[in-house]
């Protein structure tokens, strides 16, 4: 059901873990729908380049693989360029996802945005085109 790339990123996920004192961190998804992703970013203050990106994910194979791929794609990009890492970009990089798993790639995109938003808020800057991510883990209580 999954492409080889997905299986590779699931079996050997890149950049799993935490960053101590991250520049930004974001958690999206909720346990009700089944997937939670947390992204940690380490961002260079001056260049605004993402030096390090780590994730933790609770979710299916696609959730893990898209998280892994998303971290790979944003690493080395500026926070402005990182916005171009859309769910489609993540899916393409993974050679596609089954239709029922497309939402995982959306979550990965949202996770990056959430971490960037956190960074932007903390540093009182604005990243053009970045909106406050909606689906975060806090929704769970509201909805339940």
């Amino acid at each position, binding site marked *: 059901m999954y492409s080889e790339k997905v299986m590779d990123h699931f079996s050997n996920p890149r950049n799993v873990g935490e960053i101590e004192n991250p520049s930004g961190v974001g958690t999206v998804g909720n*346990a009700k729908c089944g997937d939670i992703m947390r992204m940690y970013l380490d961002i260079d203050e001056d260049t605004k380049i993402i030096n390090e990106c780590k994730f933790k994910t609770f979710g299916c194979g696609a959730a893990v693989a898209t998280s892994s791929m998303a971290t790979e794609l944003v690493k080395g990009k500026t926070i402005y360029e990182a916005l171009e890492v859309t769910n489609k970009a993540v899916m393409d990089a993974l050679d596609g996802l089954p239709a029922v798993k497309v939402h995982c790639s959306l979550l990965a995109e949202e996770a990056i945005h959430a971490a960037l938003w956190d960074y932007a808020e903390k540093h009182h800057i604005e990243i053009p085109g970045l909106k406050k991510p909606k689906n975060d883990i806090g929704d769970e209580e509201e909805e339940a």
Partner: protein
Amino acid sequence: MIYLDNAATTAVKPEVLEAMMPYFMENYSNPNSVYSFAQESHKVVDDARDTIAELLHAKGNEIYFTGGGSESDNWALKAAADAFSSKGKHIITSKIEHHAILHTCEFLEKHGFEVTYLDVDANGLVSPESLKTAIRPDTILVSIMFANNEIGTIEPIKELGAIAHEAGALFHTDAVQAFAHVPIDVQDMNIDMLSASGHKFHGPKGVGFLYLSNKVKIGSFVHGGAQERGRRAGTTNVPGVVGMAKAAKLAHENMEENIKKQIAVRNHLIDRISQEIPYAKLNGDPEKRLPNNVNFCFRFVEGESVLIMLDQKGICASSGSACTSGSLDPSHVLLAIGLPHEIAHGSIRMTISEETTMEDADYTVDSMKAIIDRLRSMSPLYEDFVKENK
């Protein structure tokens, strides 16, 4: 490969396939034909019917061959609803039935019937009291599964059937997971209708049966030719019914022994997992449980990733019901026994067969330990939990 998904489907046994083989290319006749070439296929179909009837303590003319468990469930519910709608329009079932029952009930709700879905307790048991409370003079049908396909809980069928009968309602049981796994006596257990499916007990796919007590007068579901005494149309699947009957017979010949053997392996799995993997919870009743079923929730991890990693170790298991894969909601069964969503998502079902060895079980637990460890180390939920409890 260690195949622990026998509740999804099973391997056809060599003796079963052997029994089927003559009816594909050699004696392929339609059993209803006049010529002598059809005599044998006619006879083996009759024999298959008698074989299955005997195992259930039913009569041969109470067994109707179908295309599988889902069809049997649809038939029982829809035709009973149709036949007794003038008497009443209320049906009772449980919240943990298979979708073949639940979606059929939804269909009936759209067609003017009222369905009560009984709650179950934390072990997945339907309480006879709750049925007594729910049953009404206009209740025409009670359908409670014999054993649950996900968590393996065996329901108190005999008592539930008695309550249904006292109230003048028909009693159906979806025994797809139970028939040929545990002893069933339709007479003693107050069962009017019972569904079963060949491929769940080492018979072929695409064939099942409905036991319909001669006392029950309901119409057909598949209308057409006069097969199955005019009650289920369609050219008889001769190799299919022969194979299913053979599988049922084999299962019953060795049933006591097989149950013992499976319970030993099952309990070994349950005991080791309970003791060695933290934050793991057994789902389903520990005692009133199918001999082949192990179902755990592992907190902080999600089922599908566990399955993929088990697969990488050569172990086939499932998370919830096979046919619900692709859905995003966690299993309705796990929600019905009161699990929160995020815990329900971490459920793993392992359903063994008589072929599963203690060594298989040990390898599975060892693999599982490593997998759960690994996934928890990647889990933001586990990270939060650890921080909170520091």
